[in-house]
C-alpha cells in the first residue's frame, strides 16, 4: 500500500532535504516552519498490463469496442504522444508500444490495410528514427517506418493539413489531413500529469500554428489557472472547444494511460524517498552520486542524466470517447499526484530538475529552465498557487548559457534578440511572434532537421506568464547571473541570500512552502 502525499513542517529534527538543481541536486536546510510538500508514493501498478489494455479496448467508455470500429478497407490513423512524455523517458517497453501493438493486432484481424502511425508532435521537434523506435518498438518500427507509414506530424506541410472549421469562439481547427480524413483516429496518450490528455491530445498534438495560436498566447495562458486543472484553464477551454469541432468531423478513439510515481530507480532511488527514511544504502548512494556528479566533467554529468530511464508502471488504461475517458484518467492522476495544502504562503521554493518536456536528449537552456520552474512546477496546483499574490518564488537551477543549435535554434535568437528588448509576454507576442513563426529558416529546420518550431520559445514564455503576473519577486539560487538577468530575474548564491533579497516584499519571517518535486505532485491548495 502506497502512502499518500503529505506536508511536512520543518523542525529541529528535519534533516537537510533534497533540492533538484539542473544536472545535480543540493541538500538544503530550510528555515524552521517551512512547509515541504511531498508527493504520494507510487501507486500500485495494474497486475497484468496486457490484460488491462485488452480490457480497455474491448470494453471502452461510451464507445463500441475497438474491433467493432475496425473494418476492412477503412483508413485507420494511430497518433501517439511524442517524446515530451513521459519524463524521464520510461524503460522499455514503452506503454505506447504495447497499446499500438494491440491496436494493430485488432486492425490486422479486421483486415485493415490502410494504417498510418503519426507522432503527434505539433510544433515540437521531429523525433529521430531511433526515438520513434524507442516509443513504438522494433516490430512496429520495422513494419511501418521504411514505407513512410510511421512518421512525425509536420505542421508546416500545407498540402497535408485540413481546416475543419472554427469553434463558436472563432478559433480555427486545422489538423493533420490524414487524421482528418481517416475513418478512425486512435490516439494513444501517456497522461503523466493532469494537464495532458483529453481534447488536448488531438486538437493540439496534430494541429498547425494557425490553430495553436488561438490558445498558445499570452492572454489565454495568463488566465489558465492552472494548466493542471482543465476546468480552470483557458487553454484547455479552447482545446475542448476545438475538440468539439474535431469530433464532429473525425471519429476519435481515445486511449489514455496513467503511470505511477516510480521516477527514479537503481542508484538514484533515494531521490524519491523521504530523506529521514533513507537507509544506509540510500545514504551511501546519495553521497556517491553527489560526489561523483561534483567531480564529473559536464559532458559525463549530462550523459548520466540523459541516460536515466524511469521505472514507471502502468496504473490505469482507459479507452473510448474522449471526455469520459479523460475524467477516469484524471481520477487516477489525482490519486497519484494530489496533495492537500492548507493555504498559500509568502514564498514558494522550487527545485528545477535537469529535464523538461522539451529537452529530452538535449540541453535545458535558460528559457526551458524558466518554463520548467515557472510554467510547469509553479502551475502544479489546483485551486490556488502555493504562493500568495505578489509573493516570491525561489528557484534552484544553474541556468547556464547553453543552447542546442540542433534542437533550439530559435531559442538562441529569442534569448538574444527578443528578451533583450522586453520580457513582457504580451509585448513580445505583439512585436516578435509572427516574425519567428514565419521565419523560413526555422520552418526549414523544423521540417527537415530536429528543431523546435521558430515560435516555440514564445510559447515557453507564455507558459510562465501566469507566474510573472502573480509573483512579486522571482529569484534563482545558484544561477548564472547574466542569463537570469536577461530574463528579468535575479540571482542569489544561497537560499539565505535569496530570502534576504525578497524580504522587502514578503518580510523577514515569511511563510515558506517547498514543493518536493519530482516525483510529480499536484498541490491542492485550499
Amino acid at each position: 500500500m502506497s502512502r499518500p502525499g503529505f506536508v511536512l513542517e520543518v523542525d529541529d529534527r528535519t534533516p537537510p532535504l533534497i533540492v533538484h538543481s539542473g544536472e545535480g541536486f543540493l541538500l538544503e536546510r530550510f528555515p524552521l516552519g517551512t512547509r515541504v510538500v511531498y508527493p504520494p508514493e507510487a501507486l500500485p501498478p495494474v497486475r497484468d498490463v496486457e490484460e488491462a489494455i485488452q480490457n480497455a479496448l474491448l470494453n471502452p467508455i461510451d464507445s463500441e469496442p475497438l474491433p467493432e470500429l475496425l473494418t476492412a478497407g477503412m483508413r485507420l490513423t494511430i497518433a501517439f504522444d511524442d517524446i515530451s512524455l513521459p519524463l524521464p523517458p520510461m524503460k522499455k517497453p514503452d506503454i505506447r508500444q504495447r497499446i499500438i501493438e494491440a491496436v494493430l493486432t485488432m486492425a490486422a484481424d479486421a483486415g485493415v490495410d490502410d494504417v498510418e502511425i503519426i507522432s503527434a508532435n505539433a510544433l515540437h521537434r521531429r523525433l529521430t528514427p531511433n526515438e520513434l523506435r524507442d516509443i513504438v518498438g522494433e516490430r512496429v518500427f520495422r513494419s511501418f517506418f521504411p514505407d513512410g507509414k510511421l512518421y512525425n506530424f509536420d505542421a508546416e506541410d500545407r498540402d497535408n493539413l485540413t481546416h475543419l472549421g472554427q469553434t463558436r469562439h472563432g478559433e480555427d481547427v486545422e489538423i493533420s489531413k490524414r487524421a482528418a480524413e481517416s475513418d478512425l483516429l486512435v490516439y494513444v496518450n501517456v497522461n503523466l500529469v493532469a494537464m495532458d490528455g483529453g481534447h488536448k491530445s488531438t486538437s493540439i498534438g496534430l494541429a498547425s500554428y494557425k490553430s495553436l495560436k488561438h490558445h498558445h498566447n499570452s492572454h489565454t495562458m495568463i488566465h489558465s489557472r492552472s494548466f493542471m486543472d482543465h476546468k480552470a484553464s483557458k487553454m484547455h477551454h479552447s482545446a475542448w472547444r476545438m475538440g468539439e469541432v474535431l469530433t464532429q468531423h473525425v471519429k476519435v478513439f481515445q486511449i489514455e494511460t496513467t503511470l505511477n510515481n516510480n521516477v527514479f530507480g537503481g542508484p538514484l532511488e533515494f531521490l524519491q524517498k523521504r530523506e529521514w527514511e533513507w537507509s544506509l544504502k540510500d545514504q551511501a548512494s546519495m553521497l556517491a552520486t553527489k560526489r561523483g556528479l561534483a567531480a564529473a566533467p559536464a559532458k559525463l554529468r549530462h550523459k548520466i542524466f540523459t541516460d536515466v530511464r524511469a521505472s514507471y508502471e502502468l496504473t490505469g488504461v482507459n479507452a473510448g470517447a474522449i471526455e469520459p475517458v479523460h475524467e477516469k484518467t484524471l481520477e487516477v492522476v489525482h490519486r497519484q499526484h494530489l496533495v492537500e495544502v492548507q493555504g498559500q504562503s509568502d514564498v514558494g521554493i522550487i527545485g528545477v530538475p535537469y529535464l523538461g518536456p522539451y529537452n529530452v536528449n538535449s540541453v535545458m537552456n535558460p528559457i526551458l529552465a524558466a518554463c520548467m520552474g515557472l510554467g510547469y512546477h509553479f502551475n502544479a496546483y489546483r485551486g490556488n498557487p502555493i504562493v500568495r499574490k505578489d509573493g516570491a518564488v525561489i528557484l534552484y537551477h544553474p541556468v547556464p548559457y547553453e543552447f542546442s543549435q540542433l534542437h533550439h535554434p530559435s531559442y538562441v535568437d529569442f534569448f538574444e534578440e527578443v528578451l533583450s528588448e522586453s520580457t513582457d509576454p504580451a509585448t513580445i507576442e505583439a512585436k516578435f511572434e509572427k516574425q519567428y513563426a514565419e521565419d523560413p529558416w526555422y520552418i526549414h529546420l523544423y521540417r527537415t532537421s530536429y528543431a523546435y518550431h521558430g515560435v516555440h520559445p514564445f510559447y515557453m514564455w507564455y507558459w510562465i506568464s501566469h507566474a510573472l503576473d502573480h509573483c512579486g519577486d522571482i529569484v534563482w539560487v545558484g544561477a548564472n547571473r547574466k542569463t537570469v538577468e536577461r530574463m528579468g530575474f535575479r540571482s542569489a548564491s544561497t537560499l539565505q541570500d535569496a530570502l534576504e533579497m525578497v524580504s522587502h516584499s514578503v518580510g523577514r519571517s515569511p511563510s515558506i512552502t517547498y514543493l518536493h518535486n519530482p516525483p510529480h505532485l499536484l498541490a491542492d491548495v485550499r
Partner: protein
Amino acid sequence: MMLALEMYRSPAKYLAAKAVGGRIPGILTGPAAPLRLVTINEPKAEREGWARIRPILSGICGSDLGMVTGSTKLYFSAMVSMPFVPGHEIVGELLDDCEDLPKGTRVVMDSVLTCAARGVEPCEGCASGNTNRCDRITVGHVAPGLQTGFCQDTGGGWGNVMVAHRSQLYAVPDGMSDERAVLTEPLACAVHTALRAKVQPGQSILVSGAGAVGLFATLALRELTQAGRITVVAKHAKQRELARAFGASDVVAPDEVFRGVRRSTGAFRLKPEMAKEFLLGGVDIAVDAVGSKDSIDTVLRVTKAGGRVVLSGMPAAGSDLSPVWFRELELTGSYASARQEPNEQPAFETALELAAKAPLDGIVGARYPLYRWREAIDHAHSAGRLGTVKVAFDVRAS
C-alpha cells in the same frame, strides 16, 4: 621653425612593428614607432592658391595608426614622400588670405592632393568631379603624396603649421565648435561611402565596425539614404549606444553577426567543413568599416546574392573571395570623398551639414598636445575599448 610629429623612413622599425606589434602593442608607441617629435622648418605657401594654416585640432585616423603599426600596405609606399608630417583630419585657422577666404578664417580640409592643388591639367577623375580618384597624385609642383598628411611638402595636421590649396578648403560655419568641425573629413568619407552604397529605398544594410568610420557611415546612411534596417556590428558598450543614436536599427556583437543578420533577413545559415559559416540570403548591402580579414570575410558571407559590399576600411590581405564569385557580389571601394558626389554637391558640404546637426557632442573623446603623442597613439589604439570614438591632437596647446 615649428614643432611637429614626423613620420620617417625606417625599414627596421616598420618590420619590427609589423612582426610583434600585434602581440606587444606597447612597442608600437615605443621603440618601434617610426614617428618622432621634431622642430623643423615650416612648410611654405609660395604658389598661387596656397595658404598656411595653423591647425587647431587634428584627428588621429585609422590610416595614421596603420602607418605607425606597420599594417599599411607597401602598395601605398609609392604615393608618399618621406619624411612627412601626418594629420589630414583638421580644423585650423588660415594664417594667410587664400583667394576668397580671408586670413583668420576657420577651415576644414579635403586632404586629397588633386590636379588643382598640384597645378597640372585635370585628369579624368578630377575633371568629372571624382577628385578622390585623381591619377596625378605623384606629379606636379608638390611632392608625391596621395593626401596632405602623407606628403613632404605640405606638412600635416600633427604640426604647428601646414599648407593647403584653396581647392581643398571649406570654411567652417560660425557657431560650429572645433570639436565638431574636426570630424568633417571623416564625415565626408562616410558621406562618400553612403552614396557609393547606392542604397535603394528599404534595402537592408550591415555596417561591420563601430569605430569612427562605421559610426559615421551609419549616420550618413541613415541621413542620406532611405535605407531600411541598418544593423551595426559593435564590440563595445559605448559603440553600441552610439550606433543606435546614429541610426542603427539594431546592433550585434561580432560573434552574433550571422545569427543577427540571419534573423533579421530570414536567410538560411550554412556551416561548411572547417570554414567560416555563411548565409544564403542576407543583407542587400554590407559596409566593411574595419578592414580586417575577419570583418571582410564576414561582410562577404552575410550579403545576399547580387548584393553590394562596400569596402570603407583599408582592407587587409587574405580574405576569402569565394562569396564574391559564387554569390555574384558587387565589390565597391570607398576611398576618401569627392568634390562631385551623386547628390550633386561636394561631400564636404554635406559633411558640414551633418556635423552641424548630428549628435556629435563628446565624439572627440580625448585631446592631447603633440608632446604627449605616445599616450595619444596608445589611446587611439584602444579607443573602442576605452569608449572613445575620436582622439585628436590639440595642436594649439602644443
